[in-house]
Structure formats: structure tokens, C-alpha cells
């Protein structure tokens, strides 16, 4: 059975924006079925100098899409001659995730900083919609967080507070 199970990141990922940037966090476990295939996974993947994505869902799907987006962003930023916008990165993720929504199992949080709009967090869940949020959580472990987050999150936290918030 475990050979049939896709390698999945049974995950908790989150990102919070603050004035000046974003704080992102993720757990480090990858599973095939109930076996922990990798206990030191890095689910926070850099797609550009100041743009990261938090990956949840199928490890293969998210890695493939993230690689493609990183390539597109690198190309785009050379053409633009300036760092790409976080929204652009998020939009690129969304285009792949929406077009191939029936084949992919990928929930992604795109977070980063650009000179235009500062720290931003965009969520691209299963289904491929794109939404900007002050903070976002994702992955199968995120269900346990909704209650805590609804009570603990306050808009306008600074970097230190965000760091503690994500750590909690």
C-alpha cells in the first residue's frame, strides 16, 4: 500500500505579513502513508531572492510547480530589470494550479517582500484560486490552528511578534 500512496507532505505551513516583510514557517515531515520518508524536509522553497513558497500536498507536485515558477520568475526579473512582485509569483503559481487542478494536489502559500507593496502573503489552495491575506495557514495540520489563529491574530504586529506568533 505504501508504494501506491503518493509521497505527501502531511503538513502545517503558515505565513504572516508585517510592515517590512513576512514571517514564514513549516514543519519538516514528509510521509508515504504512515512512514516518515523525510524528517528534515525543507518545505519553504525559495523561488526568488525575496519570495518564498510554503508547500503542502504532494511533494512531487509542489516541487515541480515551484521549480517551474522559479524559472519563470528568474526570466521575468531579467526582462524587467528589477525584482519581481510577490503578486506575480503568486499569479504564476495560480496559473499552473488552476489549469492542472484535476491532476495536481498542491496547496501553496506564496510569501515575500517587494519594493512596491512590502510584505505580502498570497494563498493558492487546492482548486487554484488566488487570495491575498494578512496571514495564511495551509496543509492538513492547519485545521488544528484555525481556532487558535482566530483568537490570537492581531493585525499590525511587527517582526518580533510575528515570529513568536508563527512559533506558537
Amino acid at each position, binding site marked *: 500500500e505504501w508504494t501506491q500512496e503518493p509521497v505527501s507532505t502531511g503538513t502545517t505551513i503558515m505565513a504572516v505579513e508585517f510592515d517590512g516583510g513576512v514571517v514564514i514557517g513549516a514543519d519538516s515531515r514528509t510521509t508515504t502513508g504512515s512512514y516518515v520518508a523525510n524528517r528534515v524536509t525543507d518545505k519553504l522553497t525559495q523561488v526568488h531572492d525575496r519570495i518564498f513558497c510554503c508547500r503542502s500536498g504532494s511533494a512531487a507536485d509542489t516541487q515541480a510547480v515551484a521549480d517551474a515558477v522559479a524559472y519563470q520568475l528568474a526570466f521575468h526579473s531579467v526582462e524587467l530589470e528589477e525584482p519581481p512582485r510577490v503578486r506575480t509569483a503568486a499569479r504564476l503559481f495560480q496559473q499552473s494550479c*488552476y489549469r*492542472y487542478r484535476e*491532476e495536481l494536489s498542491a496547496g501553496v502559500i506564496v510569501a515575500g517582500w517587494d519594493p512596491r507593496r512590502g510584505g505580502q502573503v498570497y494563498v493558492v*489552495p487546492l*482548486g487554484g*484560486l*488566488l487570495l491575498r*491575506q494578512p496571514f495564511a495557514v495551509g496543509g492538513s495540520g492547519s*485545521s488544528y490552528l484555525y481556532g487558535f489563529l482566530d483568537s490570537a491574530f492581531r493585525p499590525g504586529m511587527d517582526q518580533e511578534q510575528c515570529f513568536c506568533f508563527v512559533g506558537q
Partner: protein
Amino acid sequence: MELWEARAPPPFWAEGPAPGQSYCPGGVGTASALRPLTRTLTPMVTGTSVLGVKFNGGVIVAADTMGSYGSLARFRGISRLLKVNDSTMLGASGDYADFQYLKQVIDQMVIDEELLGDGHSYSPKAIHSWLTRVMYNRRSKINPLWNAVVIGGFYNGQSFLGYVDMLGVAYEAPTVATGYGAYLAQPLMREVLEKKPSLTQEEAQDLIERCMRILYYRDARSFNRYEIAIATEKGVEVQGPLTLEANWDIAHLV
């Protein structure tokens, strides 16, 4: 002895089945494995009911501001209403990613039309008719946009209110509702309109609020914040989010 070379009979048509073979349209097969399967077979993040009602001098369309992820109330501040232009608005229930796609397409259409600079803009009836064709053709390719859309507007002195869904079912009526609204709110709206076919804007807004409150009570995937879009000869205005107060007085009777 001669070896009889058994040749398989040719398929009925290119990429089709041979006699005795099973056929999967759209290819879970070798030939068409390279084309992406771009079907929305399961909606993911969904919006619940959308209501629409005509009044004397315009139309109101209302939808709550929630995107549900199954039974999880995941996104509680999203807008499911779209202002197309100064005479048309639409609200969508169903898959939110498909609604965002639709929004992109419609926004681009509106921009392209403005570029023509001929003073014409899309009428609500035109958008309704176009959307019906789009939805029906998508469903005919077994690749639907998983939405039920309410289109409202005021054009040339006349109110318009229409409905299109993922099967391409489309109609116009003085009141429309999608999802749970069709069961809970539609009878209420029809009753009010039967007694008084021509409502004022205030009365229509009160009716919408009453219906949204009942939907909040009874629809497990609804939310108590909603937006309304009002189309009159002055244009289209999206108001909100408005909050519903729930009344639990009857609880003491139980």
C-alpha cells in the same frame, strides 16, 4: 503450418475504441495522455447561495462573503459579487477558482470593449446570453465551470435579472436564487412579490436581509456577513459587508 498474423481490427475513429475495447473519452490512454485534463470535476472552495430580486427602478443581487472548504469556513472575507460595468453585475456561487477565472475573462472583455471606444457597453442581457453559451459549451465538453451565476442589471430603463448554472440552464425571473436560497429564500421572495409586484428599493433591501438571515439560520455553509450590489439607472453600486444579527429568542421555548 502458416502462422496467422492476428491483426487487431482498426479503431472506429482516430483515438476511438476498436471493437471490443473499452473507450475513455478524453483519453486515459496512450494517444491522448499528453493533453492536460483540465476538468473541474470536484469544486474545492465554494460559495453558497446568491439571491437576486427586482424592484421598481432596479435590481439587487446579494451574496455572503464566505468561501467554504467543504465544511470548513475557510475564507470569510471574499467577495462573490462582480461589477461588470455601470449597467450589469453578477454574483456567483459554486467553485471560487472558477469564479475568479470567469472574472478575469469578463474583465478582459469589458476592457476590450472600452478600447473600441464606440460608446457601447455590454448590456445585462448580452452578458447573460454570452455566459449561457459559455457554460453550456463547457458542460458539453464535460469540463464545466462549477458555478451558478445570478446576473442583474439596469439597462435602457429596464431591470434585468437572470440565472445561469454549470449545466447551461438559464432563465430570467423577477426573483432568482442559487443553492439553498432556491429552497429557502425563493418562496419568501415570490410571496412578497405576488402581493406587491413592484417593490421600492427599501422594501427589496429589507426582503433580501430577511432572506439572508433565514439562510444564515438554516444553511450550514453560510455566514452572517454579506454584500449586496444594487443596479439602478445611476449605475451599479456594491455595498457591504453588511452584518446580520441573529435572533435566538425562540430558544427559551425549547
